[in-house]
């Protein structure tokens, strides 16, 4: 493939997309409005409209928060970690995954705000010299979360934009219509001089090197929201690696869920090939095995600890009132992904797409199970009777979060190069047979 063919093919996605794109956008916007409507009711009425009941005071919103932060992780894995490992197949899928990361963190960041009783006071979480002369408690994992999530959002957004800059410049020089001045502005006036490329490649490498430990720290910090407490089912040293693996697992599933239709709608079949999906599936299988192992270790440690409360919580998790969620979670996250051992499944988009949907569901359930079953079975038997029954408001806001995520993603892939033009061209030069260089 020549440079200009890559350029034309990928910039073609900026033209009017097919009807399915509009159908998708309409559905996503509808879901988003539904969620916004439900949140309006919650904000004006109060948190009572959510199904919280003592002792279960974290529910679907925190589940959604952890879910969306997790979704973000695979994007950084693909764009940064695989970049450092020089896994060249990442090129085709890196841009879409990076964008997914940014939008997933945006979505996740809303949930702590939705979850607090007075969302208009969320800025109390930010440490600044305020009129009450109070500082935030830096020993609290919730404040660590604020730092981790804002850092993650800032760094991944800058990483995404850095990669986009030369591609937006390519779009600027290609499109002729009213969008040209917009692309001109967004490209920052990128020229592509050797001087600019030199700083660009240096910074790109540093961003990858900074994002790699960052991505591991972010979900570790999220896991410490739970693990730093003393609640049975939460208080566990395995939580950080367990959450990071789970996050990457769910994120890879979401990448597959997004890329299968995207490649179809924008006719990117020659760029995002079955080979790429197979590699994603292999990563998904690996992380699924780690997650399955973590589940087993959790049960083993609960038994081995000799703590009757730990044992009680885990017994309750499997055979208590939330048993259906737990078994479904096992099936979606551990049993079903085993099918990826077969090439017939991981090399075929239809079954792979179905597995990825189930993994998304399973990983959402995992967070629900961890949060709700642990809270409902603490040290005080008098608390064990409580049943958490989510209300339609919580359901609507969850649906709305999917609407927001898909709206942002659909708008992105339509208006920006969804595959990195620069990196595809670079990969192309690497694929050429090496000639003796006289330079």
């Amino acid at each position, binding site marked *: 493939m*020549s*440079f*200009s063919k890559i*350029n034309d093919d990928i910039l073609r996605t900026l033209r009017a997309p097919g009807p399915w794109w509009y159908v998708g956008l309409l559905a996503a916007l509808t879901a988003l409005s539904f969620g916004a409507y439900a949140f309006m009711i919650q904000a004006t009425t109060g948190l009572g409209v959510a199904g919280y009941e003592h002792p279960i005071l974290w529910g679907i919103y925190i589940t959604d928060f952890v879910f969306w932060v997790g979704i973000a992780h695979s994007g950084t894995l693909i764009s940064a970690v695989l970049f450092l490992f020089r896994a060249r197949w990442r090129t085709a899928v890196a841009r879409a995954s990076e964008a997914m990361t940014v939008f997933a963190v945006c979505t996740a960041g809303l949930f702590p705000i939705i979850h607090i009783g007075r969302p208009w006071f969320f800025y109390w979480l930010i*440490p600044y010299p305020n009129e009450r*002369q*109070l*500082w*935030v*408690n*830096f*020993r*609290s994992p919730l404040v*660590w979360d604020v*730092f*981790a999530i*804002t*850092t993650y959002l*800032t*760094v991944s957004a*800058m990483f995404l934009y*850095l990669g986009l800059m*030369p591609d937006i*410049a*390519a779009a*600027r*020089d*290609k499109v002729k219509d009213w969008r040209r001045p917009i692309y*001109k*502005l967004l490209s*920052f*006036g*990128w*020229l*592509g*001089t*050797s*001087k*600019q*490329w*030199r*700083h*660009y*490649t*240096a*910074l790109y490498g*540093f*961003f990858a090197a*900074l994002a790699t*430990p*960052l991505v591991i*720290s972010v979900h570790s*910090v999220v896991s410490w929201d739970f693990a730093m407490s003393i609640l049975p089912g939460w208080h566990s040293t395995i939580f950080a690696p367990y959450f990071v693996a789970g996050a990457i697992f769910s994120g890879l599933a979401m990448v597959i869920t997004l890329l299968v239709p995207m490649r179809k709608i924008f006719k990117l079949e020659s760029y995002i090939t079955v080979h790429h999906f197979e590699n994603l599936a292999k990563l998904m299988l690996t992380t699924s095995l780690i997650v399955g192992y973590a589940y087993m270790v959790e049960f083993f440690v609960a038994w081995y600890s000799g703590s009757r409360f730990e044992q009680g919580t885990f017994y309750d998790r499997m055979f208590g009132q939330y048993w259906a969620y737990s078994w479904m979670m096992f099936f979606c996250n551990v049993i079903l992904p085993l099918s990826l051992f077969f090439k017939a499944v991981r090399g075929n988009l239809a079954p792979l797409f179905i597995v990825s949907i189930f993994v998304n569901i399973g990983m959402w359930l995992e967070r629900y199970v961890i949060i709700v079953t642990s809270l409902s079975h603490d040290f005080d038997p008098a608390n064990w009777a409580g049943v958490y029954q989510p209300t339609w408001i919580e359901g609507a806001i969850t649906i709305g979060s999917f609407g927001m995520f898909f709206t942002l993603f659909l708008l992105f892939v339509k208006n920006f190069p969804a595959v990195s033009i*620069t990196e595809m*061209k*670079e990969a192309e*030069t690497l694929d050429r047979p090496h000639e003796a*260089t*006289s*330079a």
Partner: protein
Amino acid sequence: MATEATVLGIFDDGKPAANAAKALREAGLGQITAYSPVPDHNVEHAMHDSVSPVRTFVLVGGLVGCFLGFAFPIYTVLDWPMITGGKPLISIPAFVVIAFELTILIGAISGMLSFLGMAGLPRLTGQPAPDPSFTNDKFGLSVVCDAGQAAAVREQLEQYGATEVRE
């Protein structure tokens, strides 16, 4: 009185462009600016560009972030001493998380700002690149030289395989 001329050579590939840039530099003909659609090691090498100082900014930013990540929580707990959970006021292990995140945050921001500064971005006014195909598939060398040397520059560019040369 035009004493300076700008000669633009357009190449199909990075390698001839790099060779031409090298030859022009060795002949001491004019100031060269190289344009390319992708980062090209041959061209960078031929242009004798040094290692990007972005790394220094990332390092300094990271160190500043790390320092702030410890100093700021320590300042706040001493400013309003309030013991929670029976832990010491200055709980270093807890502050490591803040320091770690700020190391990365400020390192990244500092790297980004230094990149923009050194790459001369954002550059919203001024001339666009001499040819729009440089973001597509062509490599270019723009040579600013004395008017008298223009012919020599043009000859060099053509000799190394420029598909198009214009002044």
